[in-house]
């Protein structure tokens, strides 16, 4: 913290081109010392590019960078770190089999006669943790793969602080966190600014930006739309700046009544990879033209429940029926063929093959569908046309079917997956966190599509940890805690506070479900460390 009067970071007229594409067009950004400055915008608006410029990952085509009042040119992240700029990436850059302390000092190990001096590193790291009230010091000798996502993120932050960062860039830090972990992160951010650090907080969740940011800068199409005061702005104003038009936050009225039962789950018990029972006897039913929402903190058995229904995980006991037929032991492929579409939680690992282009990804899950395969041979022409349909109908950017899936932004990857799954013309859609990491324009689009599908008579099972999402989309809302449904409620007749209590396992007065926390549910791991 050299000069306390000059802004921590001052970007002036930053321009960055990739070929013909202008990713940043004369963007200005001023981050005052000791504040949180949120950078919001849709996927592809240029947020990450701008921050990569500040972190020395890209060289610029125009403009100047000042850090603490001093003009700088960064050729590499090393230069940025030397100037006191640190970055926590959305996908953590940690070495899983190494311990936390090894990760923190990696690249800047204190040495004593050529050997790593872990003791002095430990003292330094513990100091950093003490100063900001981090709990990371208790994990120093634990391997990264054995700690939870929230802790991993704090390890990344400690790593940056250890390297002497005064200004920290947090790239969509909440995308991978549970609501509780988000709260913890916000506390950490407060501690950091209180001690004079400056934070740049990249997000596309407006409520989060408004909750923690002193100032909010909105980017759209590579340009800065404006900077507003975090305490004074409204969600509507920000959304308008981001999307360039008014965004409806309300769900649409339904036009049809639910029909017959499509999915029935009875007494389902499922174990996870560590052989712990994660689903403790769930009964549920979804009718055509109906959305059943499942709310809950991540790691309470939702993932295992969804995998058991879609055929990716073996059922321990209980039954799953689809369209009146028992499919408990049916293979994943048989379930796809019979009309169950699945929007998976993890688009990077499951929903898309990262180094396939969109054409080849359009076949994923459709390998046995007659429209694309004849006598074992793939009709690549039909698949290509299908990919092009998805791209245009779901507004996937860039609109090239030859683009590799891995080169698309998260929101566009998600739109492609949603498009592919919904175009199957399924009878049942299982949607797991369908808008995680997606910008609000796309969220609105995906929500509208799901509602249209429901109105066309599809049965939808929606799992999400976003309360506003499940409340808005669901016709009925089940709350899951430690492998059981705590309650099934009418989403229009429940407050967020009530839902929050239910998610924590506390029941509203006298429901028909058992009290959680009893007997065997006590052995269920609450999801830490997964």
């Amino acid at each position, binding site marked *: 913290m050299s000069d306390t009067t000059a802004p921590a970071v001052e970007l002036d007229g930053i321009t960055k081109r*990739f*070929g013909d594409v202008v990713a940043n067009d004369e963007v200005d950004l001023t981050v005052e010392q000791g504040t949180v400055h949120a950078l919001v915008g849709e996927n592809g608006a240029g947020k990450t590019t701008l921050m990569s410029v500040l972190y020395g990952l890209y*060289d610029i085509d125009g403009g100047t960078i000042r850090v603490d009042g001093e003009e700088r*040119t960064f*050729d590499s992240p090393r230069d940025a770190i030397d100037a006191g700029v640190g970055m926590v990436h959305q996908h953590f850059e940690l070495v899983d089999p190494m311990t936390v302390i090894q990760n923190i000092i990696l690249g800047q190990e204190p040495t004593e006669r050529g050997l790593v001096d872990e003791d002095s590193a430990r003292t330094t790291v513990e100091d950093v943790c003490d100063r900001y009230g981090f709990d990371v010091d208790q994990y120093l000798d634990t391997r990264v793969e054995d700690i939870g996502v929230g802790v991993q993120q704090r390890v990344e932050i400690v790593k940056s602080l250890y390297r002497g960062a005064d200004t920290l860039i947090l790239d969509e830090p909440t995308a991978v966190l549970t609501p509780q972990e988000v709260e913890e992160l916000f506390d950490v951010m407060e501690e950091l600014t209180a001690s004079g650090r400056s934070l740049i907080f990249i997000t596309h969740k407006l409520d989060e930006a408004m909750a923690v940011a002193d100032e909010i800068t909105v980017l759209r199409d590579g340009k800065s739309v404006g900077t507003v005061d975090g305490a004074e702005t409204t969600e509507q104003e920000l959304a308008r700046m981001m999307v360039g038009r008014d965004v409806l936050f309300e769900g649409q009225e339904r036009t049809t009544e639910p029909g017959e039962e499509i999915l029935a789950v009875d007494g389902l018990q499922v174990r996870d990879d560590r052989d712990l029972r994660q689903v403790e006897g769930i009964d549920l039913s979804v009718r055509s033209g109906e959305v059943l929402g499942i709310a809950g903190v991540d790691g309470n058995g939702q993932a295992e429940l969804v995998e058991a229904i879609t*055929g*990716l995980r073996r059922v321990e006991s209980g039954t799953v029926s689809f369209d009146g037929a028992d499919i408990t032991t049916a*293979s*994943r*492929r048989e379930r*796809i063929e019979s009309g169950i579409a*699945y929007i*998976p939680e*993890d688009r990077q*690992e*499951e*929903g*898309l*093959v*990262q*180094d*396939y282009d969109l054409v*080849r990804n359009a*076949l*994923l*899950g*459709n*390998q*046995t569908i007659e429209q694309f*395969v004849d006598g*074992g*041979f*793939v009709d*690549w022409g039909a698949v290509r046309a299908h990919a092009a349909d998805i791209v245009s109908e779901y507004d996937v950017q*860039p609109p090239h079917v030859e*683009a590799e899936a891995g*080169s698309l932004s998260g929101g566009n990857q998600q739109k492609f997956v949603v498009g592919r799954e919904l175009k199957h013309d399924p009878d049942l859609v299982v949607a797991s966190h369908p808008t995680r990491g997606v910008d609000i324009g796309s969220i609105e689009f995906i929500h509208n599509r799901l509602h249209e599908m429901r109105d066309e008579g599809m049965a939808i099972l929606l799992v999400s940890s976003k309360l506003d999402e499940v409340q808005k989309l669901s016709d009925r809302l089940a709350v899951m805690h430690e492998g059981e449904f705590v309650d099934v409620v009418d989403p229009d007749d429940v407050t967020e506070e009530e839902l929050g209590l239910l998610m924590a396992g506390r029941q509203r007065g006298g429901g028909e479900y058992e009290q959680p926390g009893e007997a065997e549910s006590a052995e269920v791991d609450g999801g830490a460390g997964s």
Partner: protein
Amino acid sequence: MSAASERARAIVDRMADRMLRASVLERFALAVASTTLALLIGSVIVWATGYDAVEFVSSLLYGAVGNISNIAFTLRQSTMLILTGVAVAVAFRAGVFNIGVQGQFVVGGFATALTILFLAPLLPGGIVGGVLLMALGTIVAIVAGGAYGAVPGLMKAYADANEVITTIMLNFIASGVIYFFIDAYLRPAGTSAPNTESFPEYVGLPGFAFGSSSFSVIGLGIALLTALVVYVVMARTSFGYDLVTSGHQESAAAYSGVDPKRTVVTTMTFSGMVAGLAGAMFAIMILGYYSDPSSFPSFGFDAIAVSLLAANNPLGVVPAGLLFGGLDAGGQYIGFTLDVPAELVDGVVGLIVLFVAAPELFRMSARRLGLGGEDR
């Protein structure tokens, strides 16, 4: 400093872009240029170690393509390397490391030999009998190779046994057991060599223009056809899509309805079938009898290098197999005719392989580092 590094990066970026866009013809030209350059450097090494560099290089070339019988030998080795190379490529493409192609290959050949030797007395002689015996022998070899490949596949899928280790062990088991059977039961009385009887003289592929007893264009044709068929299966069928997707990203394959365990077994079986076909070709086209497998050339291992050079593309295995076949033939010829240490020959051959592989290595690392693309 920064300007210089920027310029260097821009140059590397442009080169990577150029390499990634190279056409098939350009890649072939690159391979020829690489071979020439490697031969130049190799001859400097040969000269520096006190041997005649000109004689060395000319012998290498003469041994590979110098006359009709040397060409036949090159193509014979290439035939085997293409078939075994395709077998390796199939498995590697699907993300399964089948190091057991050698074992599946010798099992396939043994199955062919057994079929021919036992059925020959029961079938008519002449062309009809010969074709029938060869066809049956080949089919049995494909089945046997597939079955022997399925074993490590099953062990990996259902017992979590690492296929690299099991396939290597199964190579030794195959050689040992086959040697035992030949030595104990199939060796004609009064002979000491662990060889079976010779196949009837009407069993064998015609040499045609090459006039060779151990090479036939029919064999090469079968190898080329196999490469083409496997390529089509991998690129154009849903079965191939399942396999390749499993190799790229297993979790996405499972999501799409591919059963990962079953895929490991089918991949190993498919790979073993192609290796078995190579064994049939070895028994019928080259040997004409069967022998102790530990005395056979290690086609199944050389095939790993062939497949990697071809980036595990079944069609790419064809030029890679031809190159390796030529180098093998040329190297053996030097061994017969010149008084040069075998290590020197291997060194120069290795240099050529390295040089030819370099562009592909460059492409791979460029792709990994995100160079040469506009979208990053």
